């Protein structure tokens, strides 16, 4: 019966999608394709990995073989797989692999490239990815917004954009443990403020207490949802004249505070607002008992911009009392790395902490040398993720709900426009070759003028109606008080 279905499937698919080239000349090389999906590892619920072939070929024909199913591309310009067939293919082959054979026609004849594999994991990926789309510019921006993309198909929807609120900037979107109903983001300019969705309501707060030199910046929700840790940063930027660098973003002051959503108050602690240290990038452990953060000795800025290097630290946090412990531990030291840690993110199972390491500073997206490292929180050992890193920038990242997938931003494709890549991490912290977020038309990345900024997994579709967004935007944001 299975064989019958298989045969019928092949006849139907081949019949509808063009004929397989006969007399193709086999070559021993893999095809050069974009995105590079050769031998990548993917979750079984990911959207079709459509790709295009590099080189001046007139036609292409792609065949995907899996257990009991054969899928072919129906597009001559790029490999374009049918969504339902693709889903079926991946479900059938979860835990195994599929083999892809690319045929291409040049002026004279068809070429058959060396088949390559795609490995399919049984561990699924969260259904949505949220990110900000913004041009990788200097001081001004035009169109920008926070979007969400279904990872199981190609649908992208906006969450909030500055088309609705012209001239504004929105950033630092963050979710409580990937919960699509618990989100926050900052809107700058106009009637901006910090938007928080809590208990199905969208509210706005004025997140700059009078005593603070800046408003709330980089956030992280406490797993219980009452508290949100924020850094406050006095940030500036300068511009390089030499060819390999563009922008230097630095803090001349930075501290960490905890925002109590129940009381609308900011909790401060001397250990996190030290004048001798720059503290930034707070992140709670999944059990909520520790706050991890990055910390560097203060320097004269911008003169000593390349001397600022961040350690990875942590401090105990008591969510019942809303208080910190007395000791600050340093987990990754500048003296060991001779580099600077940014964006610490802990896997939901609490085993690993993924961080970015660059030569100096904390704005790693403009550091070509920035790479991802994984810290084993049990042993304290950390290592360079060979399979994941490239010669170009790897920067922001986050974990999937099941701790098996990471998404990270990378500039490996063209050196400027940041794109989201996904990689599988096993229980021992070993990574597999990452893959780029698939798009319906692989030309998408060539045509876009936007960077994918702050990619975050989300467990469902975020939805704010225009009415809700406008109501929040127009409301008087309650000013946050400070609780010493």
């Amino acid at each position, binding site marked *: 019966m299975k064989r019958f279905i298989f045969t019928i499937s092949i006849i139907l698919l081949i019949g509808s999608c063009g004929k397989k080239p006969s007399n193709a000349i086999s070559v021993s090389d893999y095809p050069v394709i974009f995105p590079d999906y050769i031998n990548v590892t993917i979750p079984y619920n990911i959207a079709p990995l459509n790709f295009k072939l590099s080189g001046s070929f007139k036609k292409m024909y792609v065949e995907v073989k899996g257990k009991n199913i054969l899928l072919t591309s129906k597009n001559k310009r790029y490999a374009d797989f049918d969504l339902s067939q693709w889903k079926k293919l991946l479900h059938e082959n979860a835990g195994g692999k599929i083999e892809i054979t690319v045929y291409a026609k040049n002026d004279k004849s068809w070429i058959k490239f060396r088949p390559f594999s795609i490995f399919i994991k049984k561990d699924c990926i969260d259904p949505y990815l949220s990110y900000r789309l913004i041009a990788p510019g*200097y001081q001004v921006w035009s169109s920008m917004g926070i979007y969400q993309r279904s990872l199981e198909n190609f649908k992208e929807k906006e969450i909030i954009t500055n088309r609705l*609120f012209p001239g504004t900037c929105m950033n630092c979107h963050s979710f409580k443990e990937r919960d699509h109903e618990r989100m926050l983001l900052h809107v700058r300019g106009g009637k901006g403020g910090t938007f928080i969705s809590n208990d199905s309501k969208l509210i706005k707060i004025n997140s700059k207490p009078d005593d603070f030199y800046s408003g709330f910046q980089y956030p992280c929700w406490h797993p219980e949802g009452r508290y949100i840790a924020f850094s406050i940063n006095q940030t500036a930027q300068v*511009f*390089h*004249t030499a060819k*390999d660098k563009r922008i*230097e973003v630095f803090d001349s002051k930075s501290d960490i505070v905890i925002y109590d959503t129940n009381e609308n108050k900011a909790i401060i602690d001397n250990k996190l607002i030290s004048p001798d240290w720059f503290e930034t990038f707070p992140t709670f452990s999944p059990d909520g008992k520790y706050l991890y953060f990055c910390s560097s000795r203060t320097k004269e800025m911008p003169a000593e911009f390349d001397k600022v290097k961040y350690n990875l630290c942590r401090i105990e946090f008591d969510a019942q009392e809303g208080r910190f412990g007395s000791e600050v531990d340093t987990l990754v030291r500048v003296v060991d790395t001779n580099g600077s840690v940014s964006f610490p993110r802990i896997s939901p199972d609490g085993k690993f902490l993924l961080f970015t390491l660059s030569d100096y500073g904390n704005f790693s997206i403009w550091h070509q040398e920035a790479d991802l490292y994984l810290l084993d929180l049990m042993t304290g050992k950390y290592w360079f993720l060979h399979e994941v890193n490239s010669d170009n920038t790897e920067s922001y990242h986050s974990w999937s709900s099941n701790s098996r997938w990471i998404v990270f931003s990378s500039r490996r494709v*063209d050196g400027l426009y940041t794109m989201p890549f996904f990689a599988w991490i096993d229980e021992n912290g070993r990574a597999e070759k990452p893959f780029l977020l698939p798009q319906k038309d692989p030309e998408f990345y060539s045509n876009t003028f936007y960077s994918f900024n702050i990619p975050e997994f989300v467990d469902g579709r975020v939805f704010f109606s225009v*009415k809700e967004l406008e109501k929040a935007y127009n409301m008087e944001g309650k000013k946050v008080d400070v609780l010493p």
Partner: protein
Amino acid sequence: MKIQQNERFSHFKKYYKQYLLLLFSLLVFGYWQFGFPYMLFFQEPLQLFLCSFDYFIKSVSTAGGLARYLGEFFTQFYVLPLGGPLVLLLWLVALQQLTWLLFQKVSFKDNHFYLLSFLPSLWYCTILSEEFYLLSGLISVVIAMVGVLLYVSIKNFKVRSLAGILLIPLIYFVAGGSYILFTLSIFVYEVVVFRKRDIAIRGIFWLCLLFDFLIAIVLPLFYRMYFDPVPVLQAYITEHFHKISTVFPFPVVLIWLFVPFALIVIFWVGNEEIKKTKKIVLYGVQVLLLFLAGYGGYIFFANPKAEYIKKFDYYVRHENWEKVVSLAKKKLPRNGFAVNYLNLALAKTNQLGDRLFRFEQMGKVGLFLPYEREMLSAMLGNETYYQIGLVNVSQQYVFEATESMPDLRKSTRSLKRLTDVAIINGQYELANKYIQLLKKTPFYKNWAKEAETYLYHEDKINNHPDWGEKRRLRPLQDYFFSVENIDQILLALLQDRPQHKMAYEYLMSYYLLNKDITSFMEYVDLGYNIHYKYLPVAFQEAVLYVLALKSREAVENNNFPIEDATKDRLYRYIAIYTQYPNARELLKKDFSHTFWYYYHYK
């Protein structure tokens, strides 16, 4: 004689519409071709029209998107000689002809409103003199007029009602805000014209009109709630009339109101017997209105000063430096942008140090434009940085210009320059991204294809007259850029490239324009690396001035490469300067182009 006159008169009477149309066409063509051609040349590269199916779909999937798409499509032709004026002529004549056809539809007798049919076109012609108003707005109005004509051509009331219900959303999605013109016009037609003709008032008649209005009111709200979240006003007006989407395009709204209003007037006045005296008044009023629209529009929207700067910009973009200098000779630039371009042209023609003070100067802004967080200063300002080899700064300015575009869109101009810089810096993947996009544009694809052949070919790039030169001029050391400290940047650049003549002359000019004699004298020696036979004249004058403050011997025995003629001029200058209380007036004739005069009197 009289017979001849009568023949002429009857000939004119027979063909007056054609003559008037010809006159209007000549006026429009001449206005753009001879009045404001450079504004059109300036506008054209500030858009990125891609010939691809994806771009078409993306464009037409917003309200008014087709009008925008057509606007961009036709704006491309502005790059051709005569292209802009002919495109505008085409659409303005189309609007006039449609207006006239519509006027005829509501009038049963001799129509005396032919002149009035030129009013929307004439007004729009002047509106477009303001660079932020878009051709897509005119096309949007034309589409709405086609819709109105289609609607009034339908005889059957039921079919017409159905057509109205369908056409309102269709015109909204295709033409955007001009659906208001359509809605108002069909309302006027039904209430004033149709009702008058057919008398019968049925409930269904009012119901249909009410339904039309409901659709017109609810449609944009529905659109913004469920399709494209935009502010309320933008949902109604749409963004295809003015480059700044939040600007209320009042001049266009006047046209939306004029058409239905004119229909009422023509219907009431045009269907009466008109006596000769009334006719004269009628024609007189129309001529007056046309005059007011034409002249008033010109006063409101046209900007000859901006046209002058855009003329400079055109020749700078085409690197026709001699032309820039000759333009400045004809009419002295007194604007920061134009002076900046003039100084660049002087530098590129090796005249900056010699002729700096031959022209009106405006301080350091005449050499380096600061970035003012808007498109113009960034786009125009990038040219100097690029030519001097500060390609990363040029890149920064152009990127900022792109992000500061009032319509939030990209442009071929910035994409080309970003490609230049990416190639110079060896960032070939990035350059390729821009090149692939430019290859999709009809008028820049050849440039892009040529640029593509350079990617990854170091020798070829190094031998390229522009990219190779910039590679040899760009900085080697890294430092932070700040226009406030541009002298330090130039000094560092000269440290990297001691024979960088343009950097040297800009640095010295910067000190002279700032009257910073101390710094000038501190670094004037850097000119030895450039192996001048004589220092540029302005620099000679400055050196001699400083030496003269010490003694005549210092002037005579200096070791600088200075001509005797300059010394002689200095002595003559000093003689007048020191002896006459009205020296300023006396020196003006022969010395106003010297550093000394600038230093003392400006």
